Each structure stands twice: as C-alpha cells, then as structure tokens.
C-alpha cells in the first residue's frame, strides 16, 4: 500500500499535467498518446517509469528512441521483452510514439541513492563525462543518450550488459564504451548509477 500511495500522488499529478498541457484538447488529440498506451504498463504514465528496473522514456530524444526501437526489433539490442514490443511500435508508427514521449516532461526517478555512493560515482565519472557531458544529458545530435535521472537499477543493468557485450554485441561504435566498462569494477557501476540517477 505504501509504495502505491506515492505512485498515486505522482500519477495523478502527471495526468493533470498531461491534461493541462493539452489546453482544452483531450489527450487523444495527440496521435502518439493512444499508440503508446501499451508502453505505460511497464514504463509508467507518460513514460515516467517509477520503478528501479524500467527506464524513463519521458523527455527522451526522438531520434535516440527510434534508433533503440529499431535495434530491439532487429535483435541487435537483445531483449526478450522489448523485441516483440519494438516490432509492435514499428507497426503502430515509431515516429508518433517517439514524438509523444519526447514531449512529456521527464520526472527523475524517485528511487533513492545513498549520498556516499553518489559522491563515489561523481569521482569515478571523469571518463563518462567525455561523451555524456558534465550534466549527464548526452548529445542528441550524436545519438548519445541522457543518463540524468534514470533509475539506478536500470543504469547498472546496462553497464553490465555493455561489459558482457550483451548489448548490441559486436557493434563497432560501442566498442570504446565496452572497453571502458570492462576497466571498471562492478561495485563502481553501482556508484556511477547512483550518481547519474541524481543528476537533473
């Protein structure tokens, strides 16, 4: 009950924000709203996942969203959950759904991070900054994703997948990223994840 109360407060706030944002029009006027209804089951209202394991899609760069959907659908980014859904997104129109999520205000993850881990993560992030920027927001023009405010569990999972070459296996542009991940200890992944989850 406790966790849900927090979720209710956030979700109702989000809903009101969505409705207010539409300025009198209903949410159905945005073509991406109806097409993204399925996504909400895991990724939350308006793409603002509140759990530790599911990434937040709200505010995501549309080009990056579409690139990932294509990677999931072609199994370049292997995921038993996302491969079928990515194919569904392509059927429904990935551009509409990408635009819808990019237009939603991103609410950073509510999953707490320990202050000590955040500090250790900040100290360990020197090399991450080179691509993801000092604020962790990435570079949409280069399809480098924002890490800021994403759930720490999700971030840590992705670092492990990079290390094991299970995310986009064999992908040439990601080679440097994977080499970097192999030079970092698993404990530091937790620290980096904590740090980036707290960036705004």
């Amino acid at each position, binding site marked *: 009950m406790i966790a849900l109360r927090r979720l209710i407060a*956030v979700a109702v706030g989000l809903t009101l924000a969505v409705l207010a944002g539409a300025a009198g029009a209903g949410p159905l006027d945005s073509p991406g709203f109806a097409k993204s*209804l399925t996504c909400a*089951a895991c990724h939350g209202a308006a793409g603002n996942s*509140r759990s530790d394991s599911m990434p937040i899609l709200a505010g995501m760069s549309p080009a990056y969203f579409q690139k990932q959907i294509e990677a999931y659908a072609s199994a370049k980014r292997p995921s038993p*959950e996302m491969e079928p859904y990515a*194919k569904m997104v392509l*059927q429904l129109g990935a551009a509409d759904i990408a635009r819808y999520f990019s237009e939603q205000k991103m609410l950073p993850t509510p999953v707490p991070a320990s202050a000590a881990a955040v500090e250790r993560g900040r100290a360990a992030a020197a090399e991450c900054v080179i691509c993801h920027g000092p604020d962790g927001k990435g570079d949409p023009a280069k399809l480098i994703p924002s890490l800021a405010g994403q759930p720490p569990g999700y971030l840590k*999972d992705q670092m492990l997948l990079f290390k094991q070459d299970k995310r986009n296996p064999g992908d040439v542009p990601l080679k440097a990223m994977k080499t970097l991940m192999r030079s970092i200890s698993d404990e530091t992944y937790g620290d980096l994840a904590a740090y980036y989850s707290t960036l705004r």
Partner: protein
Amino acid sequence: MNRFTRREFLKSSGAGVGLGLLGAASVAGLGGCATSMKGDFMPKSARRVVVIGGGWGGATAAKYVRMEDPSIEVVLLEPNKEFISCPFSNLVLSGVRTMDSITFSYDGLRKHGVKIINEMAAAIESDRKRVRVGEGYLEYDRLVVSPGVEFQWEQVEGLAQNQDKVLHAWKAGPQTVELARQIQSMADGGVFVLTVPPVAYRCPPGPYERICQVAWYLKNNKPRSKVIVLDANQNIVSKTGLFREAWKAYPNIDYRASSKVVGVDPSTREVRTEFDKVKYDVINLIPPQRAGTIAVQADLVGADKRWCEVNHVTYESVKQKGIHVIGDSTIGLPVPKSGNVANAMGKISATAVVSLLNGKPAPALPPGNTCYSWVSDREAIAVVNSYKIENGKVVQIEQKLTPAQSVSVAQRALGWAESIWSDVLA
C-alpha cells in the same frame, strides 16, 4: 509472514451492504439525505459510462475514460473495498510476500473522478441501457463489462458443497490467506495436491508458478513433503520448457499430465481423476472456468455458454450493442487470460468508448502481453506477446521467452508489477 490475517480480511469485507449504500448515496451527492438504491438512485448528470468489475480490466477502463475525456461520468461497480492483485499472490503461498504488499486502495481512481459503488451489478437491461443494482438501477450511455471468471463447480463431483474446505485461491483474497495457512500447518511428510483445470482458464502459467512456489517452500521447510500435480491438460500449458527446467530444482514435484479431476471428497481427503484416486493432506483444486456470472445472465456469452466474443478493435460485444466486454471473460482473440492483457483491453476499450461517445471512429490498437512467473524466491522467467490489428482482427506479431530463469528477470518482474499496479489504479 502474513500480516493481513483472515480475521482482518473478514472484518474489512464484512461491512458489505450497509457501507455500499452509504457509498452510493455520497457519490451521488446525496450525502446526509437518507436514501437507498431504489429506482434511478443516481440520475445521470452527463454522458455516462458504467463499468462492471474493478479488476485489472475494469479499474483500468474506468481510469482511462476519465483521463481521456473528463466530461464523461464514470461509475464503477465493484463489491470489494480493496484491490488484491492475483499476479504475485502465489508468492504469498510461499511466504515470500505478504498480502499487504499486493493489496491496494481504490482511492487513486476516486482522484480521477471515478464514482465507485461497492456493490455487485445484479443484472443488465440492455434494451433500456441500464444496470440493476440492489432494488434500483443506473443508466448508461455505454457499458464496460469486466467480470473476470466464475468457477464451474458442477464439473467436479463433491466440489459445490465443499467450497469452504476445497480451496481454489484463484481469486486473490481470503482464500490465498487460508491456503497459505493450510500449507504452513501441514506436517512434514504431508502431501499437497494441486489440480490444473482444462484450458481456457485465467492465467495459463499461474498453476505452474504456484507449483514452483509451494515446492520451494516445502523443500526448505518440510523436506519430506511432496507436491502432486494433477493436470487436466496433456502438458504444461505455458512456458513449458522453462518450467520443466525450473522443476529440476524441486525433486519433490510429482507431475501427472492428462489427469483431469472429476471428484473430491474432503471426508476421506481424496481427489478422483478419470482413472485414479489420490490422497491429499492439503488440496488446491483450481476448478474449470467460464465468464463471470453477469456476462452469462446478460446473454453476452457465445454458443459455448462460457466466454464472450467481442469486436477486436472496440471490444463491443458481438451480441449486444453498446456493451463492451474485456478481460478474462473474452474469447476469440489470440491472447492469454492475463492481468496484463486485461489492463491493455481496459485502455483500448476506454479509448474506443471515448471516441465513439464523441462521434469519432475508434483507433485500431492491439493489446500486448508481458507475463512474469516466479520460479523460486528470487528468480523469474517471462513470456512476451505482441500483436497487430489486421483486417479488424487481433493477430500475433511475435512471442518471445526469456532464455533462462534469472535474478535479473525477477528484478524486471518487480518493476513491471510496480508500474502496472499504478497503471491500473493510480
């Protein structure tokens, strides 16, 4: 382990009819004015959608109609005061989760402006577009029926008269608590028998996840006990290979396929299949199922008298105009009877209802299915199905299974549950 005891359950649900009446009066804006549910006890103030059943499908539909068009009044009829999640309830049987952790308030729906009446819908009068409740009725412009499943007690001899002793625990609630208690009280060396009904039934992998959970609990707490599974089907119905693999960790499971239960006798603690008799210490008999009673009474079921056929885009009944049926009661779509599918149908039917009430065509939106099963206290497996609409029909695009059980899948299962509970209720 169970913080929510059976006594507390009975206490919280026992207020029943009296509170239901109060609830109806206050939501109708008649608070303080003595009233009862007679005649048109809650006159329509705007275009109105009535939703029958506040489970995964109905609660979602009620919320999304309000979200998509707040000018539409939504009245939800649901006798239970709290929502108890069937997904994850098998973990209560093994003591891994508490009832409290799968029990949620309906307050989130109220914040969306859904008017909740804690009553059963007594009948549907489709010719007059109204639902009978108590001695009165509610008018509707469109009706969403999400009554879940009802058990076919008569299919198993001795079951109807022993419903209090032979538990199904297939609707999470007091029976979940009681079955957990029976399993915990069973002596080491005792035999737990679980029976799987013939397809179609609610939650295809559910019985097999339950077998994992009980076997895990017994292995760790009553190592001399065993689990006998009497499956009416020829093989494990869902995630077959993954469950077979998981069961290798549980030598205490004795699985018997093609063993349809035809009778049960609590006085001798014996369950009968077509060919055999099996003694039990604790029985969990999951009966054969059909659509919820109101769907049968309202003539929404097809020739099989069990399930409801619907339009694959709007979820409008093929038999009754203006009535949409969603969730486990439906048939004819290539989708499992799962909470995730019911949630998807809730959103799609809400979108169809809102579109149609505003004179627009309903968009063609397919459902999706994400289904996790816990094979121990920390590992899970999953199956995902995605769909498209082709020539007005739901067609599967793809089904994918996780390659193996893992802790990482279990973490995503937790994330899924947290998200979807909120999608249904918050």
